[in-house]
């Protein structure tokens, strides 16, 4: 059940006994009380041992221009087609922008959806909500991120959290709305484990994962010993679900802190420098590498925020003027970083035999205006953009949907955010008709009734 299958990576036994695993992985699942779990099983929503599927969601905050990336319009007028040229890929049916030469070698592995659209306000935050939770937040109902719904439904596989968010949560993007990166109405117990650090910096470490410096292994062990003595008095608290959840959290946290598997998974220095360089020594590149390590170690869902904010950071948000990004900024900094990190991730997952089981979904909140603006940039455009899927059952080398001559609107197979999230759920093997416990105990469908995954991808 918990076989790490990566080629070349040796799984050492770190003292997690089978009994421990059963407790943590199946029943002691964080935040999932026995009653809830039994209920889910009764509903068929949590078939035991049903899956090995995982997902890495790369969220391209800022929103890349479809026309300057994966849906080029070389025959359109100059103010539409922009400054870049298409190049051929290893798939005769797909041409992409010259900024992504490494992508071009992998066009048999990923598939593009060139007809994604949404109809909400053209601010970043709404797209973040919809693309990650499948819904726009309305009436005070904050729907859970896909990875949090997964964690709620399936729990964790081992001492590592089910859902990890890298490198930190989305910050301000202008709308002052929630971004849909937490568990919403499912409750904080299902929020992702947030790294809150830049994995590319020297001496990178997970905050609070390790005890303070002065607490060495001996003191840690003593603390545990002392706590066992102290807590022995209230052993019978276990009858209270909340107390046993606290217990579970303590043992999970302790296991996480002391787990060789977890420490090693988060320890990027264990990778040969050559591998680290292949991903790129950038925040994004190292997040991709960390994501691969975490999936390998048993994490079910990793969300990577390519960027954190659109203000004073060079991002995909190419309005062309300050504090946003210029086309040159995208060309020189953003695209090479992205090309390198993404292609390294895909290759690595493939070589390790993980790609079949791991969907890599590259999403963004919207596209950009077909017409280049007066600052030489492009503005927000939710009417049509391109997203990219690979692995986890997705057949590579396909193009789903089609935009019009200037990349302004879908002309074939329009795809909306609920369908995108349903596609992720399908890859993860979730029953789309499952219900979550919504606000005020109202049953809340995992996806709205009738929402279908993008079948053409599978």
């Amino acid at each position: 059940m918990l076989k790490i299958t990566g080629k070349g990576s040796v799984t050492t036994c770190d003292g997690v006994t089978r009994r421990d695993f059963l407790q943590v992985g199946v029943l002691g699942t964080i935040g999932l009380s026995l009653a809830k779990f039994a209920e889910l099983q009764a509903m068929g929503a949590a078939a035991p041992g049903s899956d090995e599927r995982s997902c890495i969601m790369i969220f391209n905050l800022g929103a890349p221009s479809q026309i300057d990336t994966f849906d080029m319009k070389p025959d359109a007028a100059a103010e539409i087609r922009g400054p870049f040229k298409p190049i051929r890929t290893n798939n005769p049916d797909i041409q992409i922008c010259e900024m992504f030469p490494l992508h071009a070698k992998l066009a048999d592995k990923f598939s593009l959806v060139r007809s994604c659209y949404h109809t909400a306000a053209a601010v970043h935050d709404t797209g973040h909500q919809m693309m990650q939770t499948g819904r726009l937040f309305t009436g005070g109902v904050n729907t859970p991120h896909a990875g949090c719904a997964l964690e709620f439904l399936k729990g964790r596989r081992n001492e590592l959290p089910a859902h990890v968010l890298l490198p930190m949560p989305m910050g301000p993007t202008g709308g002052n709305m929630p971004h849909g990166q937490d568990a919403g109405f499912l409750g904080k117990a299902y929020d992702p484990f947030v790294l809150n650090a830049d994995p590319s910096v020297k001496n990178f470490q997970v905050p609070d994962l390790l005890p303070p410096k002065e607490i060495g292994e001996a003191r840690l062990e003593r603390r545990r010993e002392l706590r066992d003595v102290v807590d022995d008095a209230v052993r019978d608290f276990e009858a209270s679900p909340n107390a046993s959840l606290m217990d579970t959290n303590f043992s999970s946290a302790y296991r996480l802190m002391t787990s060789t598997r977890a420490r090693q998974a988060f320890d990027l220095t264990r990778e040969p420098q050559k591998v680290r360089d292949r991903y790129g020594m950038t925040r994004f590149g190292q997040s991709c590498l960390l994501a691969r390590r975490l999936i390998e170690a048993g994490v079910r869902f990793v969300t990577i925020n390519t960027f954190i904010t659109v203000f004073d950071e060079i991002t995909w948000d190419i309005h062309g003027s300050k504090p946003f990004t210029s086309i040159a900024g995208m060309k020189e900094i953003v695209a090479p970083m992205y090309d390198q990190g993404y292609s390294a991730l895909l290759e690595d997952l493939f070589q390790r035999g993980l790609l079949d089981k791991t969907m890599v979904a590259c999403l963004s909140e919207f596209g950009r205006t077909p017409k280049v603006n007066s600052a030489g940039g492009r503005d927000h455009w939710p009417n049509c953009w391109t997203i990219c899927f690979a692995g986890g059952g997705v057949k590579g080398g396909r193009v789903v949907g089609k935009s019009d001559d200037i990349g302004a609107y879908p002309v074939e197979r329009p795809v909306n955010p609920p369908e995108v999230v349903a596609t992720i759920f399908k890859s993860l093997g979730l029953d789309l008709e499952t219900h979550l416990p919504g606000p005020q105990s109202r049953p809340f469908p995992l996806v709205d009734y009738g929402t279908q995954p993008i079948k053409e991808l599978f």
Partner: protein
Amino acid sequence: MLRRTTRLLLGFAAICLVAAAECGAADAQKPVQWSFRNDVQPVLAKSGCNAGACHGAAAGQNGFKLSLRGYDNEGDYLALTRQAFGRRVNPTDPARSLMLLKPTTAVPHKGGKRFETNSIDYKILSEWIAEGAPPPRDSDPRIQKLEMFPESVLLEPGQGIKLTVRATFSDGGVKDVTHWAKFTAANATVTQVDDDGQVKVIGNGEGAITAWYLSRIAVATITAPFTNQVSPRLFSRAPRRNFIDDMALEKLRSLNIPPSPRCTDAEFVRRAFIDTIGVLPTEEETRRFLADKSKRKRDRLIETLLNRPEFVDYWSYKWSDLLLVSDKKLRPAAVWSYYDWIRGNVAANTPWDKFVRQVLTVTGDTLQNGAANFYILHDDPRTLSETASQAFLGMSIACAKCHNHPLEKWTNDQYYQMANLFARVRVKSGQRDGENIVFTVTDGDLVQPLRGKPQPPAPLDSPPLRMDSPEDRRIALANWLVSPDNPYFSRAIVNRIWANFFGVGLVEKVDDLRATNPASNEKLLSAAANYLAVHKFDLKSLMRAILQSETYQRSSKPLPENEADTRFYSRYYPRRLMAEVMLDAISRVTGVSTPFDRPDGSKFPAGWRAMQMPDVSADSYFLKTFGRPERATTCECERNADPSMTQVLDLSNGDTINKKLRARDCRISRWMQSSATPDQIIEHAYLSAFSRFPTKDERAKLAKIIQASPDRRAAVEDMYWAILSSKEFLFNH
């Protein structure tokens, strides 16, 4: 909790095939003509056509929109008979009507098959169409009563029972509507119910089944006593202090759950301090209480606690949570004015009805009369009426804003009658920063969108006021709301107070009072509500009754026979301290206070406790992580009591505890400088954190570990860490 609603919706098919008798019964009941209102709509509702996930969605489904669960008869009738070029009903050839072809999947239907062509539902719809699809009429009989039989029943796990639902109409007609009722099990661990009202008992305890039909609700209670060998004398002999014990024991007896014995003095002193005033007793207070030989010492402690200054901090904070005192919409001066108003009333022990009346009917300057900020935080008649219902009646009426409440009796009309009571409140800005003036005018009404005109103002289920009356409508609202005759008002506050002391409300969630969500002990809730009303809404009188009751003073240690009980108060349920109380407790035990900064960089005075904050602006990773509410919406759900791994990592490795333990003014430094032995240090630590003496075994084991360490300070720090991160500390028990 996951409801089985979907399965009910999606799994419906072919019921009448197996229930031929029912078809016969329905035939016998067949009126002269099928009525749209009373026959067609129930078919659409039971078949799930007008469910929220299907055509009842706000945007409809595939171009066909019905009102949610059929609250808008006229609109639905038009949608069925006039839209889609009339293809939905075809009176000349009923079988070719889309409303029959689709649900039988004779033509493709995204929603799948809803009924068979030989079902009673098909028969009703087709005959209604053949009769020319008569519209809803004003003269239609209206449903007056919905009943379910049996109303309550005693069963064992594995057993089942078939429920029957009966509707009575205004023309005297009585109909068996079991087939069209929608059933829901409120407690899925005890009972399951299927589409036909067939109940299966799957566990011990009590489970309510709700039936919904034509916007009416009926409830049946299924009791499955635990199979314990408990002598009846145990219940008759159990000590009783007041009515709470009588009724709690009656319930326990009916379920065959034995109560745990009384808690120890040490458990009581810690528990009562935390629940009543939100602080731990000091070491001194604990020693004094434990040494006190008087028989009446618990009663005396209760009186002391009810009159402590920290009582005012604690309950002001609670009511500030409820009233959303926050700097998000209020300027700092207004925050203080609102908070000080609340504090003043808590200090004066203002009766709850007067407190609420003042909030609702307030006028004037927000800086002079803090309660007026209620009308700054909520400035729309709809939000005001929703907030008032949620805060003071524990009732969410928001659903009825757009459609009849699916789980309650409230209709869209009643929603707009209620909201119209707030339509004449106005606000103008004052001279000073944060100053506003709240006043009322004598004209203006809120238009109900569905009808296109205002509803006469009326408190939910009372008679309307005259539209042209110039009086402040809010006075009529307050008269109705806080009246001892309004069961919701006293029940709502009783449930909040109860949940504060017992951790689990008689109704759960605490602010979700509705017919479809019955109390775990209805008699007890009614009695407590009555008690509070008789005591003129003096909250301290209710708190005293609770604190004095044997039910509150039970041990938290479960007996094998009551371990499974989580709703009937056979023992005290341990629960995590609320974020603010926990942080204050950590400060208290370590002797190192927590500095609180506002986001703008300004500081709260040194030494202030988290429970003394007027709002939730203090920047604190700890408080956020442990679930401090945002105070953005009136809902108990804002406060999150769930333990999480982030919390544990913070306790273990984060700054909160570790930094205090290392601090120079930490209590540990004092022990290091003194000649205290490890045993004495252990005793101090236990008394301050757990309000009890350590056992011999604990003393020995802990002292051994401490003495084994060459670095004494580090070892004592580690012991304090173990204590502060232990369940015995983090939980009230």
